[in-house]
């Protein structure tokens, strides 16, 4: 070894990584759990998340020339997963999905309406409100409140300014609150 970090040792020509297909698949396999969970939380559908992760792996393979170092693979691949999820959410808006009414078998108020004093129903209402958010708003909320990433890390991960992340977080939480308030008033 010449003292350089391992990630750079495998880098050649302009610090770009050259990976064999099997090595690349191994790297992706190491990120499958994390990526699958992230995609599911963003998309709200495990089945669609599987497709999204497979698409992201394919996109990453096609764009592997942009990978600068293998130790950045996690962040790089995560960004691709997020981008794929964003595209899917936007495509979903162009092809609206008719949502079947959910049958709630859990405890509730006597008239069958959900009781928001119950924590489970509160989270359910939150989840429904989350579905109404814009793709970019969903993504920042997931990265911030599910992955517990800092604003700066989210900014770096998404390739946008920190101020934009803060703005999106502000708008997203505002819209969530509004949506929840409307639901409570309708009750």
């Amino acid at each position: 070894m010449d003292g350089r970090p391992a990630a750079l040792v495998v880098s050649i020509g302009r610090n770009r990584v050259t990976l064999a297909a099997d090595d690349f698949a191994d790297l992706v396999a190491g990120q499958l759990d994390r990526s699958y969970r992230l995609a599911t939380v963003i998309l709200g559908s495990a089945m669609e998340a599987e497709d999204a992760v497979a698409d992201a792996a394919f996109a990453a393979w096609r764009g592997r020339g942009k990978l600068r170092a293998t130790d950045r693979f996690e962040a790089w691949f995560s960004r691709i997963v997020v981008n794929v999820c964003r595209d899917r959410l936007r495509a979903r808006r162009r092809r609206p999905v008719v949502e079947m009414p959910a049958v709630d078998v859990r405890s509730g108020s006597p008239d069958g309406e959900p009781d928001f004093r119950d924590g489970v129903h509160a989270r359910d209402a939150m989840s429904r409100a989350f579905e109404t958010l814009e793709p970019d708003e969903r993504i920042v909320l997931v990265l911030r409140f599910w992955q517990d990433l800092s604003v700066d890390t989210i900014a770096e991960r998404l390739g946008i300014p920190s101020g934009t992340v803060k703005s999106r977080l502000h708008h997203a939480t505002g819209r969530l609150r509004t949506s929840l308030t409307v639901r409570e008033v309708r009750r």
Partner: protein
Amino acid sequence: MSEETFERDLRAALAMRDPGPAPAHLEAVVRQRLATDPRPRRLQIVATPLASIALVAAAVIIAIVVSRPIEVGPGSAPGPSTLPHQIAPGDGVVTDVPQPITQAVTALIACAVLFLTALQASRRRTRIGASLAALLILVVCVTIGTSDALGDAGMFGVTPTREPGEGETGAVLSVTGDDAFTVLVSLRNTSRLPLTILGIADGGTIEVGSGPGAMATLPRFAGVGFFPGMELNLATILPFHPRALDPGAEVHLALRGLAGTCAVATRPPSNDASYEIREVPLVYEQLTITHTQTIRFVESIHVPSRMPCP
């Protein structure tokens, strides 16, 4: 709902969506997907919006290179600056004004690619950028050439002239036969884009009448040079070469005219026996597209002529 409760519920709602570890078959699906990737496509570069835009830019640059050079008269090359310079017939005369076919085709292709990019791009920023770029190209294509970019800069002069007689107006030439005369015209680039003056359009030799013995040339412009300043001093004329003009910049052109074989230096017996020159067609290039603009003189130039012309 308090901030604390809100955040707790949000975290809980997101945690509810967490499905846990990936299903076992997902790794196999991904590996199979990677294994079935065909070799890199030759045209994969155009698959991304930015690459498409780069391709359009490259096409525009190639179009610019291909569309040059434009045929200009023998004096078009930068000549020696020895003074005085005699403008020769053909100096700065544009013999063939090209049609902007290459540019039009390139613009159409660029618009098509940009619109496709705008339709297919996933990022809003890219969609907006591609749409604006396509619209910009369309606006430039539609508007360019529809308005004249050269305006009068205030200076005008003719030599040799004589005092106008009774009933004569404007500048009256005092030349005989097919002698030369010189016109000073100051022009300004009144557009928002730089342009390059290529010279005067080739009007050809104008012939009068038909049949043997009836041939005579009319007054015409045969060449062009530059005045270094606004002074009508023939000893200071510089040879012509295509000159770039930034927006608002001025240039002083020395137009060499030939008065025609019927020209007379003195007042002809009849007041009607006079030709009038009011304008000159000037050729310039802007954004690789060549235009011919008719420059109208501040006052008309009269060439007294003998009638009937021998």
